């Protein structure tokens, strides 16, 4: 297991290097004047000169690349033009909010998506199956940010059941320990804050989850349909097992193995999609940070944020791959 994990981790290195390189190519080679791009057009000549020196912009390209890689490796993603803070530090402060929301939505997406997928496969071509198929396709086709507004309109503006945006209520603010508010509330045993935090999470969580439900459901249905035609399912029926046992114990476990990959891809997608959903719900995470960077023309923030989120979504995929290995007994380490 350890060997396999290390092997997979090593395989992620070229991918991450690729991401970093693409950013380098775009920001340094294609950009007419990287120093002014990062500092804004009205920056003073001395500051531009200092940054040019720091980034090695007068050196040949290959040397710039080496300097750049060194800086990335040491976590030097530059300084935010807007706050004058190191970008890495700011991102790390916002990361828990993004991760918490992504995990929450993928959990909803997986539970609901798998359940519906199994029901649809077992009752193939029933009216329920048809509705779910159409619903799933509609869910995948809707822009998530628009869906966010519609949910907000329904549940926050009209029904007033849930808060429209933000991450916490000022009166019930969880004490920050890990930055993951749900975890923090549980650690401190703060019941009211936990309920309030969960309420804030429901709308953005479901908004993101609806798309995931669609794709996880469609995929579960198709692997499940394939699985229930296998010989070992016939064996299970020949033993006289009840239909529920056949489906849950014998079919679902097999069908779920490939679904895990899709869940991993969804999770990766949720991180990159955070730029949209966090903007809609004013969720103080990395996605909103990037968009604020766009609006302030703060390109160090945009570059660093996008790159880091891309790397994290690669790592999430990796994590799910490792989980895949533990689920399937046929994979040996």
């Amino acid at each position: 297991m350890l060997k396999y994990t290390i092997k997979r981790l090593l395989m992620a290195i070229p991918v991450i290097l690729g991401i970093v390189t693409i950013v380098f190519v775009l920001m340094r080679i294609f950009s007419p004047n990287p120093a002014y791009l990062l500092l804004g057009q009205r920056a003073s000549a001395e500051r531009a000169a200092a940054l040019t020196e720091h980034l090695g912009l007068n050196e040949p390209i290959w040397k710039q690349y080496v300097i750049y890689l060194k800086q990335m490796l040491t976590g030097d993603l530059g300084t935010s033009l807007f706050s004058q803070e190191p970008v890495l530090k700011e991102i790390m402060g916002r990361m828990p909010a993004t991760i918490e929301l992504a995990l929450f939505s993928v959990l909803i997406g997986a539970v609901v998506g798998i359940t519906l997928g199994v029901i649809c496969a077992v009752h193939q071509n029933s009216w329920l199956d048809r509705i779910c198929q159409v619903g799933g396709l509609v869910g995948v086709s809707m822009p998530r940010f628009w869906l966010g507004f519609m949910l907000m309109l329904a549940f926050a503006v009209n029904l007033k059941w849930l808060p429209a945006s933000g991450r916490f209520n000022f009166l019930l603010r969880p004490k920050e320990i890990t930055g993951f508010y749900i975890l923090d509330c549980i650690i401190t045993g703060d019941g009211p804050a936990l309920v309030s935090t969960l309420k804030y999470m429901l709308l953005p969580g479901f908004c993101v989850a609806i798309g995931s439900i669609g794709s996880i459901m469609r995929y579960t249905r198709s692997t499940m349909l394939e699985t229930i035609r296998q010989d070992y399912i016939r064996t299970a029926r020949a033993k006289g097992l009840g239909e529920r046992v056949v489906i849950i114990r014998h079919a679902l476990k097999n069908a779920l193995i490939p679904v895990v990959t899709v869940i991993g891809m969804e999770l990766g997608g949720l991180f990159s999609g955070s730029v949209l959903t966090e903007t809609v719900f004013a969720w103080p995470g990395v996605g909103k940070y990037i968009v604020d960077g766009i609006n302030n023309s703060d390109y160090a923030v945009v570059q660093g944020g996008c790159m880091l989120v891309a790397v994290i979504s690669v790592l999430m995929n990796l994590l799910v791959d490792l989980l895949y290995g533990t689920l399937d007994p046929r994979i040996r380490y």
Partner: protein
Amino acid sequence: MEESSKQNNFMTQEDLSASAPSSLWKDAWKRFYKNKTAVVALVVLALLALGAVFADWLTPYNPYEVVLSEAKHGPSVAHPLGCDEQGRDILTRLLFGARISLSVGFISVSISTLLGSIIGIFSAYYGGWVDAILSRIMEMIQSFPSILLAIIFMSVFGRGIQNAIIAIAVVSIPGPARIIRSSTLSAKEMDYVTSARAIGCTNVRIMFKHILPNILAPIIVNATMSVSGAILSLASLGFLGLGVQPPTAEWGYMLSDSRTYINSAPHMIMFPGVAIALTVLCFNLLGDGLRDALDPRLK
């Protein structure tokens, strides 16, 4: 012996006439026509395209004319979908927005499909280091979440419709490239390629005259599905303020612009989203239908 070979010849000729290329497409059309949802999707898209092309004649309003007296008015007979915060007719703006969305979708997908096809077919046909380099580059682009890559791209090159097209095209090259690489790899092993080589066809000719027509089905299906992705990407960029320049009527930008009025004029934010979702859904349904019609094995 001689007689049996004669009979064989006779058989093949009959087979050939039975499956002439035209009837292949006719069969596909028949299968497509049977798929009611796909046909409906095609009709809706056709209507939308017509609406976009003839928008100037279809509506009495100008999409950019500010009529403050009608600002934020809800749907009415005069304005079926209402007016926005500057009193511009939303339906008119949506029709003009369809122009942008559809053309950006088509142009960027054409670019990415063309480049992706060329890259895919070259890397599969030549193999070796050509394949290694091209495939690594494709993997690099693919591992980068496309919306983030597009954001960086737009922030370096600046907003505007041309840059949006290029950004969306670049991030979606790996899709067709990968599909075409794998279909070419299998097509390469087919006998018709060997025989083309035997009669002395050049590599380029073999690639584009013999292999390409045989892997057209997955390319078309992928391209159709990609249009929906491109339209969503454009809307997302517009929403983030990185798409086309305001005040151009563009769906994503309209959506983003009207979010401030979600309490007072919810219709403003509702309809652009419906337009996006409907278009994307139709392209997805169309893609599904085409896949089933063109290559029943893919199902």
